[in-house]
């Protein structure tokens, strides 16, 4: 990269997957293959994805670092940039700056029971960890994946959920909010916190990685607390609005913490010590 910290890499859209209405995943490859080979990141890190002429938007890298040669991002059409990203076709150009921020402590998670909870579009950062763990399966003990969605149609990564379901050595629990089920739904019906308590996840030698809407995080934390999990063994991410990703533009701070630099990954204990401004 040049000395210009705001200059993006040039990426090419290689694959587009429709996940749910208005939610898409783009697979991107580096236009400069040498840069692509040099590029490395850790699960949990994020980047600024841009459409030239429309602007930049912040997403986590949703593909795992164990799968080389491309990165993926999943996003919901919501504003100017996500609308433009949604309109891209295979072969189109995307700008990318990153990787930024900290990551999930995969090294410390080795030898432990791993519980991965993704709620709504929050499954994107968790998916990165899921594949990262599955690609290094022998490093971990039990792997439990839990996915939650408002309704069946809004579940993202449906194909992959099926794959995880069929894998040996993975326990998959999927749930939709009451009223969100369809006649052929074969998963649970209930809010994630309720289901978490029902299936009685065990805190024993466990690490939890959990992402989702703030309200879902809040109640799921309470459920985990009831089950005896302590706040140090639960990791989540903050998703504050960002512009630079470099600790300069002053937008993403929560108290004296810059989410782009000190985060986006925090333990539940760290979240509790922050001002409630996220």
């Amino acid at each position, binding site marked *: 990269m040049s*000395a210009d910290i*705001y200059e993006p890499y040039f990426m090419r859209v290689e694959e587009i997957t429709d996940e749910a209405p208005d939610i898409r995943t783009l697979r991107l490859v580096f236009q400069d293959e040498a840069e692509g080979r040099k590029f490395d990141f850790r699960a949990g890190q994020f980047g600024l994805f*841009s459409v030239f002429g429309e602007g930049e938007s912040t997403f986590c890298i949703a593909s795992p670092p164990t799968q080389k040669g491309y990165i993926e991002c999943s996003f919901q059409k919501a504003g100017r940039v*996500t609308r433009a990203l949604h309109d891209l076709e295979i072969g189109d150009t995307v700008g990318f700056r990153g990787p930024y921020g900290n990551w999930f402590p995969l090294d410390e998670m080795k030898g432990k029971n791993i519980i991965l909870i993704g709620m709504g579009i929050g499954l994107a950062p968790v998916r990165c960890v899921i594949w990262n763990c599955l690609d290094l399966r022998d490093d971990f003990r039990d792997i439990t994946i839990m996915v939650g969605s408002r309704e069946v149609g809004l579940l993202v990564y449906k194909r992959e959920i099926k794959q995880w379901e069929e894998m040996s050595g993975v326990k998959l629990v999927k749930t939709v909010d009451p009223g969100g089920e369809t006649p052929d739904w074969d998963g649970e019906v209930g809010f994630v916190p309720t289901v978490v308590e029902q299936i009685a996840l065990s805190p024993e030698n466990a690490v939890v990685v959990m992402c989702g809407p703030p309200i879902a995080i809040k109640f799921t934390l309470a459920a985990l607390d009831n089950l005896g999990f302590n706040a140090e063994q639960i990791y989540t991410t903050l998703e504050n609005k960002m512009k630079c990703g470099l600790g*300069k533009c*002053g937008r993403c*701070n929560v*108290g004296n913490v810059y989410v782009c630099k000190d985060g986006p990954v925090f333990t539940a204990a760290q979240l509790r010590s922050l001002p409630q401004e996220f």
Partner: protein
Amino acid sequence: MTEFKLKEARLGELVNALKGEGYRVVAPVEEEGAFVFKEVNDPGEIRLDVLRTARSIKELFFPRVEPTLSYEFEGGSVTCRSEIPESARKTAIIGCRPCDAASLTMLDKLFDWDYRDEYWFKRREATTVISVACDAPDSYCFCTSVGGSPEGTMGSDLLMKKTSDGYYLLEAVTEKGRSVLETAKDVLEPATGDEEVQVGDVPRQFDLEHVKPWLDKNFEHDYWDEISYKCLSCGVCAFVCPTCHCFDIQDEADLERGVRLKSWDSCCLPIFTLHASGHNPRATRGARYRQRVMHKFAYYVDKFGMTACVGCGRCSVSCPIDMNICTVVAGAAGQAEAST
């Protein structure tokens, strides 16, 4: 060290000597009824007597809007170029106040933190800051309350102090300042040491030591809603502030070409933290004004070891509803003192 002095009437000659050395000279001049920093063509325009320009010297290093990227669309493909300058123009700023100069040292920390912003540093490296000590500060000034001084040297390369007999004493602070003295040596006279300098008094308004401990403990406090009740969320305080540095990044383009722009922003504006989902972590004026005060007096101290306020008073002067940050912070410090 003060070895030289400049006769006030010979300021123009100093300016011309600098220009002769290839400096672009920027100084306070009057423009449409306001005082602003601009490139000086005629040294006669320079107004070293102006206490407070409308905006600070921040914009000479960090412009209100600047492109970081330009690109062109052609036949379905994009070509793009970083707008980072090879080098910035050699510049001398004459006549900023010590508070403005101090803001540069504060912002150096931010722009060098981990990722180095060369847009800022290329201009910093190419610029010599010649400040003028304040002989007549006014009631909005509170530099002494935030660790500064009307004759402070932080951030300055050369400090000029007015004397009672029509001179400026010149104190070189850095190597850059010394090379200005060298450039202008034919215009300068040796200082005698018995000059009487005219430096005004800025009374202390609050004890900075009490501020951060109170802020650290009172994120949740009625004080924030009370003081911000009249705030209009217009953001002018951030735009005139020498240390406010929050910015936005936006694209502007037509069908053929476009630019990616970095432009000033303000935490007082409701859309600053608004998510696309509609969720806003700082949805109230109280939360936003608290952010402004916390960022300057608590978070910046945690991150960089200094307060991000230089006490220039611009935000208070410019505020349409007369919000005064000095009063707000003094109020916080006062509550801290009252409770001890």
